[in-house]
């Protein structure tokens, strides 16, 4: 990948995974069984945006459809979806055999190339808020 521009690198990332992404996106029957095995989904009052299928479709699905040409704010939004709402624990179960973590990892790879990734030295607003609540 040395010497390639960011767009070319993203194209390459998508090309390498094209067959897998296409198959997975078309095989999803929206049965929501993956949600049942996701601890994040259960710990967040079954918020649909925590459903593994939702996270995959709204990250790599979106990137793939738009061939990686997303606006900066779209990548920024996606960051919350694929880093904060998924920890890649690999416990999500899909009866169709879709590897959701691999799809989310692919979305992360694209975001990383664009310079969007999670940093850990900035305390998130959510942690600040919970700290305030806990110390009251």
């Amino acid at each position, binding site marked *: 990948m040395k010497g390639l521009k960011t767009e070319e690198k993203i194209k390459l990332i998508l090309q390498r995974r094209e067959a897998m992404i296409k198959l997975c996106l078309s095989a999803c029957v929206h049965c929501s069984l993956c949600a049942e095995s996701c601890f994040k989904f259960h710990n967040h009052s079954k918020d649909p945006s925590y459903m593994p299928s939702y996270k995959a479709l709204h990250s790599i699905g979106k990137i793939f459809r738009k061939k990686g040409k997303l606006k900066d704010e779209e990548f920024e939004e996606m960051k919350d979806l694929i880093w904060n709402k998924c920890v890649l624990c690999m416990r999500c179960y899909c009866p169709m055999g879709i590897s959701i973590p691999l799809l989310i990892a692919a979305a992360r790879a694209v975001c990383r190339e664009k310079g969007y*990734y999670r940093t850990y030295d900035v305390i998130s607003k959510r942690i600040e808020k919970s700290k305030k609540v806990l110390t009251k």
Partner: protein
Amino acid sequence: MVKAKLKPLEEIFGMIRSYKKILTLSCGGCVSVCMAGGQREGMELTLELVEFFRQNRLDAEFTHYTMERQCNPEYLFDAEEIVREADCVISTACGAGVQYIAESHPSKPVFPALNTLFIGIDRDVGLYEERCRTCGDCKLGYTGGICPITRCSKSILNGPCGGTHFSDGSCEIDREIPCAWNDIFERLKSQGRLENILTVHPPSIWMDQAQRTMVQYGFEERYRKKE
């Protein structure tokens, strides 16, 4: 989580100075949470090495890539091609990640960029404290949730040793270090559970002398060796 720290740049340089195509492979797992080997740290390390090579009048081509996990086969696919193209790999993962990359690419020299230190807690951003040495025989149940292996300077299991300063409950090794067994005593006393340390426990089996493999409950049948 696993905590690690970057090795001195000179040490890393010493390992890779003879190679021409060098790949810095970051890990998006635990080491990125403790800010030692994530994407940003990997990029910074690459830039520093480029500069180091330049100062030493050496020529090498550097590439950087971040994998989501270096300890899991599912994510190896990610970096397969990039690793193949490099002469050597500097991994910013923990010891397990480095070994797994080396095992998956036996013909490729893989070097660690970090010193993996311990399993610890996050006191604050960038401040971590060791809490577990994965001894494989957890004593926390009768030591009031305080680990004598990590917290006691001598790692003794039948303390206190006799070197506790009674005035402030510190350790004889250093007045700054609180005596773990004093803390254990105080906590158990406050919970009315002093009998926990008054009982004689059987000797510990020091499992960390040999490499361990763990099969999680419920998966025994799956990994049972066939006769």
